[in-house]
């Protein structure tokens, strides 16, 4: 899944966008998750939904849309070296390839 881009770097210029920012997620077709596709500005969630339809589904790219106010998203740090993800780094035994099974054992 594409990573959401909710938090912004502090802007040196004063922020003066007239409508708040919404992040847009699309379900491409039934059976797939919603995926982040970008953002847009709208006065309210309903308008955000309409704008998302016009902006991100002009060619049947979606069967379902979520819009989320960017300010409502809580995100982890994007830095891959962040210790936040460290706990899963040393647990190789969680992966099937950790286990040696002879090749002639069937259906494994």
């Amino acid at each position, binding site marked *: 899944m594409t990573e959401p881009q909710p938090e912004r770097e502090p802007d040196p210029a004063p922020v003066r966008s007239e409508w708040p920012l919404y992040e847009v997620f699309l379900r491409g077709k039934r059976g797939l998750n919603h995926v982040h596709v*970008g953002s847009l500005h*709208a006065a*309210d969630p309903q308008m955000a939904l309409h704008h998302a339809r016009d902006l991100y589904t002009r060619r049947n790219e979606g069967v379902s849309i979520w819009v989320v106010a960017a300010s409502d998203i809580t995100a982890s740090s994007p830095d891959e070296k962040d210790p936040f993800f460290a706990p899963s780094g040393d647990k190789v035994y969680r992966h099937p390839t950790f286990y040696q099974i002879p090749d002639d054992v069937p259906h494994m």
Partner: protein
Amino acid sequence: MTAATQADLQAHFDQTIARDRRIEPRDWVPDRYRATMIRQIAQHAHSEIIGMQPEGNWITRAPSLRRKAILLAKVQDEAGHGMYLYSAAETLGADRGDLTDKLIDGRQKYSSIFNYPTLTYADVGVIGWLVDGAAICNQVPLCRSSYGPYARAMVRICKEESFHQRQGYELLMTMMRGTQAQRDMVQDATNRFWWPSLMMFGPPDDASPNTEQSMRWGIKRHTNDELRQRFVDMTVPQADKLGVTLPDPDLSWNEAREHYDFGAVDWAEFKAVVAGNGPCNTERVARRKAAHDDGAWVREAARAHAAKARAS
């Protein structure tokens, strides 16, 4: 921030670039990378938005309902491309309203190609064929830009540009099967747009001081001259097939280079148009400003409606 931390961040950034991984929003980046990226994305976004005008002028005068529906869809796509790109610029901390202001008061540029007028309906076809063709040449490598949100916007845009180019070429093929007057219109439009299309790739490499840094950062993948050559090589056979002559007496196949040689671009004209002295610079910006000003009451009304809905 301590010097050591700063060095760590720089090292991590350098390593990400060296491994050809993508930079994502909120990653630490050098100030110059951020500024360059915002400028590049904003200029691209502005080009899409201003790019609606030359062709938009013809929507009410399209020769058939079919052509009108196609042109409407195309111009709507250009607006969409502008929005994807403003969205990408905002992930770097740019503010959309601020970018609009910078376009309107001339502090940020857009592609000089849109400062040329569209005199006949053949121009709609030639813009699709040559201008969007050149844009595709420029943009396909940007799908691998080191800045993730920009690269993803470019993937989406490139898919849609393909429709733009093909509808233009099909329009021209139709006109070439028509009357002599229609064929003359296609040739005339080609004559006017050929050289400005070559200018879309930017100044020659020896006059493009930022190219080297941009290539090191992975925000530019080929030099201006490489892309220009690629475009010429792609376009010559298309012109032959169409039956138009590209207005360059020096255009010829070079067996040794396995590329087409072509004549010198008039860089003085390019500089003049970029500096604001093209045929339509003033008109384009004035119209963008008028649209923005005329929309002020709509933005305000929507805000008031949203506030009222929240309160109730």
